[in-house]
């Protein structure tokens, strides 16, 4: 592992994603990416008593599946990096408590998949772990009740609002063959003063642009050098702003796709500006993207999940929303 430029890590052993799994809920099963999921639930409670338990179960299922698909047992995993949106990351701690794997909780809001993937890759690359796992989840109902209003409350959503995915994604990394992690750029917090909690895409776009520019500068590459550039959960508004910011900085973005716009059919599924939540970019990566790479359709991609690092308290106190974006360069 070597630092290139100021912000990017270049891996030498290049840990491979040995197993990956995506699980989702009902709305995700009705979306265009349904065939890419390993498991889909039609009941938003997943046979549990509370939505929090349901979200925990999403993580249990995705982590267990990914480990099985890697041909490993729980005891083989030296570290699991996991996080979610709920206070004190309870979906992760409760979902993974019975797996008996050394656990490090992470919080990166919706950027958690890229953050945990980067951490797991660094652990394997450095030799700290032979096998390390990354997992994250979100659930529409748990997020609504924590960040907004009760589910049955009759409120109207703004056109810029995004829909929290009920989904989880997990990846198991180790030295081997398959899709490999080549670079990681850890993002800097960027805040351009957006205060609207119903417009997260706008709050995260500057951080996304900053991390992409850092990565291209550090590695002396350009957007055209990659088969695809996936961002997590910018939605329509954030995507438009990201493209505008990149143009302003002289690096027009091509081959860009946003996980928040891939997961749902916006015309049919009433998700307004697109999907969001940790589980959104996680399930798109661990299902759709990695499947496409393993089929050889895409060989060299950038995956950058973006997060809005506010809480309900900070927003009620009038604070703006700090954004973050972490980038992982994956190649077959």
């Amino acid at each position: 592992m070597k630092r290139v430029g100021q912000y990017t890590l270049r891996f030498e052993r290049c840990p491979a994603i040995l197993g990956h799994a995506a699980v989702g809920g009902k709305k995700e099963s009705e979306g265009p990416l349904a065939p890419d999921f390993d498991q889909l639930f039609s009941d938003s409670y997943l046979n549990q008593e509370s939505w929090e338990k349901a979200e925990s179960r999403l993580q249990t299922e995705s982590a267990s599946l990914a480990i099985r698909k890697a041909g490993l047992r729980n005891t083989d995993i030296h570290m699991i990096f996991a996080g979610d949106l709920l206070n004190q990351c309870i979906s992760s701690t409760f979902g993974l408590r019975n797996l008996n794997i050394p656990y490090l909780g992470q919080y990166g809001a919706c950027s958690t998949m890229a953050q945990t993937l980067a951490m797991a890759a660094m652990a394997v690359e450095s030799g700290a772990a032979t096998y390390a796992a990354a997992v994250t989840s979100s659930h529409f109902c748990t997020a609504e009740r924590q960040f907004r209003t009760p589910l049955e409350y009759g409120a109207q959503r703004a056109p810029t609002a995004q829909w929290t995915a009920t989904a989880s994604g997990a990846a198991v990394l180790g030295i081997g063959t398959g899709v490999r992690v080549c670079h990681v750029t850890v993002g800097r917090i960027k805040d351009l003063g957006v205060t609207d909690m119903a417009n997260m895409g706008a709050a995260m776009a500057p951080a996304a642009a900053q991390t992409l520019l850092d990565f291209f500068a550090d590695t002396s590459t350009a957007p055209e050098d990659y088969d695809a550039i996936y961002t997590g959960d910018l939605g329509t508004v954030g995507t438009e702003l990201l493209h505008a910011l990149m143009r302003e900085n002289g690096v027009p973005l091509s081959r860009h796709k946003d996980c928040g716009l891939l997961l749902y059919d916006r015309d049919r599924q009433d998700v307004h500006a697109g999907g969001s939540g940790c589980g959104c970019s996680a399930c798109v990566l661990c299902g759709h993207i990695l499947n496409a790479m393993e089929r050889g359709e895409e060989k060299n991609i950038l995956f950058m999940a973006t997060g809005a690092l506010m809480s309900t308290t900070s927003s009620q106190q009038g604070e703006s929303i700090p954004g973050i974006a972490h980038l992982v360069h994956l190649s077959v």
Partner: protein
Amino acid sequence: MKQKSPAAYQAMVRAASPASPLAKDCLLAFLTGGAVCALGQALVNVYMLFGKPLADARTCVSVTLIFLSALLTACGVYDRIAKYAGAGTLVPITGFANSMVSPAMEFRSEGYVTGLGAKLFTVSGPVLVFGISASVIFGVLLFFWNLLTGGAA
């Protein structure tokens, strides 16, 4: 990344963010709010037909509308109507019933006391606090006004 001021970015955000369809929202609110009121009036007439005096009939209408709103909330239908109706279902008494029943359902999972009891007014609380405060202030002002002008207290 080139320096960008929050003000300059705000202008970009405004241009990129679609606005709420205000005319459509207003029209739907007008129609559904009017429909709720028409239903209320129809119920007044029905209750009076059954021999209730006007004041009692109006009380019965409030009870009926609250019941209907609570029932639709419990069945998970209310929020689907409100998505289109907006202020049309929020402003009438139906909105208040919904703002009580939805947290009651939502926070039941944290127990009857610390969940349901504590969170029951989480949406409607501010309406009660400022509504009751405003009525108290208005009452006191009216009291002194009547003292000064010698009107009926």
